[in-house]
């Protein structure tokens, strides 16, 4: 009888010791993480309900910022442009990444080298890339339009200098830059599909296209889901590529949500209103991710 409380006390001491040791490991990172990330995320939900510029302090204004947002034409433009970018960027990147992964999964000479090449744009700084692409896209003398004229298009688009074509130009660059990264995820996913499934399909007389439909696509389902979630969040928060390529222009033709937050906050010093727009961005990403998870779960059941 006496051994039971003793054992429990010893167990209790063990838990306490583990807790202290565990926290001591976490602390150096956690202090920085909590102060520099968690606190700002929390503060966001306070600032959004205040009116604040750099000179005064925060003043509670309730839902005023959100009311203002509803009537803000620039906000609506930014939202529309962000959706525009997202709607094209997701399928294009997904398709390009999957095609690259399938191609580089073949037994061809030099495939390892090409995997490296395809990934390189992703780790190259966006400032340098934006300069190159702006020059490639240059309407009068750029090589892209030179090629287009060469194949018989007399009036090639003005790209980043035209309100209609600036967004397509940005989408091209965004897709070009990110496809190598998602390709890596797809390549990793392809390795998880058992080879026997392909053998069985072949025995059943399935041709290459049927094998792709019946084996590859279902096998890649978890990867595809993950890629779509990452791509969605990535597209809605698109920022640096636009900031350095077009700065939102010409006019407001490439103004996106992240950039609008930046403009309101850091250029016009309206921190309260910028925080409210931030919450809108956060809420969109959050809701879409939840919806995707629900759809995915329903699909696998």
């Amino acid at each position, binding site marked *: 009888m006496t051994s039971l409380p003793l054992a429990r006390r010893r167990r209790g001491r063990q*838990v306490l010791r*583990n*807790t202290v*040791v*565990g926290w001591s*490991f976490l602390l*150096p*990172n*956690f202090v920085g993480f909590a102060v*520099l*990330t*968690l*606190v700002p*995320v929390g*503060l*966001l939900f306070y*600032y959004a309900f205040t009116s604040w510029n750099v000179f005064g302090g925060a003043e509670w204004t309730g839902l005023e910022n959100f009311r203002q947002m509803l009537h803000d034409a620039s906000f609506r433009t930014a939202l529309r442009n962000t959706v525009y970018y997202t709607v094209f960027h997701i399928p294009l990147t997904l398709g390009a990444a999957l095609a690259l992964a399938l*191609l580089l999964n073949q*037994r*061809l000479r030099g495939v390892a080298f090409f*995997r*490296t*090449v*395809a*990934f*390189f*744009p992703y*780790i*190259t*700084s966006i*400032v*340098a890339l934006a*300069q*190159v692409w702006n*020059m*490639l896209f240059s309407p009068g*003398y*750029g*090589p892209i339009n030179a090629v287009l004229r060469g194949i018989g298009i007399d009036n090639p688009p003005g790209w980043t200098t035209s309100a209609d074509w600036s967004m397509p130009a940005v989408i091209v660059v965004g897709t070009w830059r990110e496809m*190598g990264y998602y390709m*890596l*995820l797809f*390549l990793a996913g392809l*390795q998880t599909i058992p080879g026997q499934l*392909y053998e069985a399909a*072949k025995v059943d007389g399935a041709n290459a296209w049927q094998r792709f439909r019946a084996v590859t696509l279902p096998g890649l389902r978890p990867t595809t889901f993950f890629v779509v979630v990452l791509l969605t*969040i990535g597209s809605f*928060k698109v920022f*640096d590529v636009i900031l*350095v390529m077009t700065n939102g222009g010409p006019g407001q033709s490439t103004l996106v*949500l992240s950039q609008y*937050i*930046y403009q309101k*906050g*850091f250029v016009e010093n309206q921190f309260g209103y*910028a*925080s409210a727009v*931030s*919450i809108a961005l956060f809420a969109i*990403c959050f809701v879409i991710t939840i919806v995707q998870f629900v759809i995915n779960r329903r699909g696998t059941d």
Partner: protein
Amino acid sequence: MTLLEVPVADTRLALDPPPARSRRGYRLLGYAALLVAAAAILVPFYWMLMSSLKSNNDVYTIPVQWLPDPVVWKNYVDIWQKSDLTTWLKNTLILSVAVTFLQVFTGSFAAYGFAKVRFPGRNVLFLAYIGTLAVPWQSYMIPQFILFSKLHLSDTLWSIIALQAFGAFGVFLMKQYYESIPDELLDAARIDGMSEYGIYRRIMLPLSVPALASLTLLTLVTTWNDYMGPLIYLRSRDLWTIQIGLKTFVNTYNAEYALIMTGSVLSVLPIAIIFLLGQRYFVEGIASTGLKG
């Protein structure tokens, strides 16, 4: 690369070899596709490099001039005189090294706590870490800026260190790796009387060198390439990093196309070298987490 090297096609070719002619057709088609893809990916880099070696008037010509003639090496001398490249590179190097050291050290240390020490509340806490990976930085950069200003961090190099060094990404990557190391190994060390800190230093760190290399390289590249952080926080010219410096240079000398490309090449070169030397760690780091910093 080892991770991705296993080809799926192997066994089925042995099982049912298709007629040689159509197989060769497929291979040719594959190489053609490979060639087109490689061209699409590489042409911008080629253009960057070639333009950096042209005289300014030769950058835009009709028809497009694909090789510099004459080759103007002088651009690579002029850029150092026309810009503060030395300062920018120095600042960027300081930041990259400091951030990487802190991220790798605190990240792997915390990951050990999450992966190998059992204590109440651990999983909830880890969820908070993972949760913030899904929150776009753009949505909390405003309150973060206000906080940093109150802490008197803005317009110092410390702001960038604070911004990048304690990210959840490092913890996540290292935890994934540590969990693949069997507990039995640690239990044996514990029975021998080794403390948890000793286990971390003498067993985990040596065993996790590949993961540490992945994290080091990814953090180094992310910090080197970061444009938004320095744009928001570093106002003084003498604190500028290569990305901010290059962007300002572009705005100032916006018609000096060749020099702009020279600067771009120089800003990409260190990353290209690091990437070529350690590419398999990049690939493994991303394949194992599906994320980057």
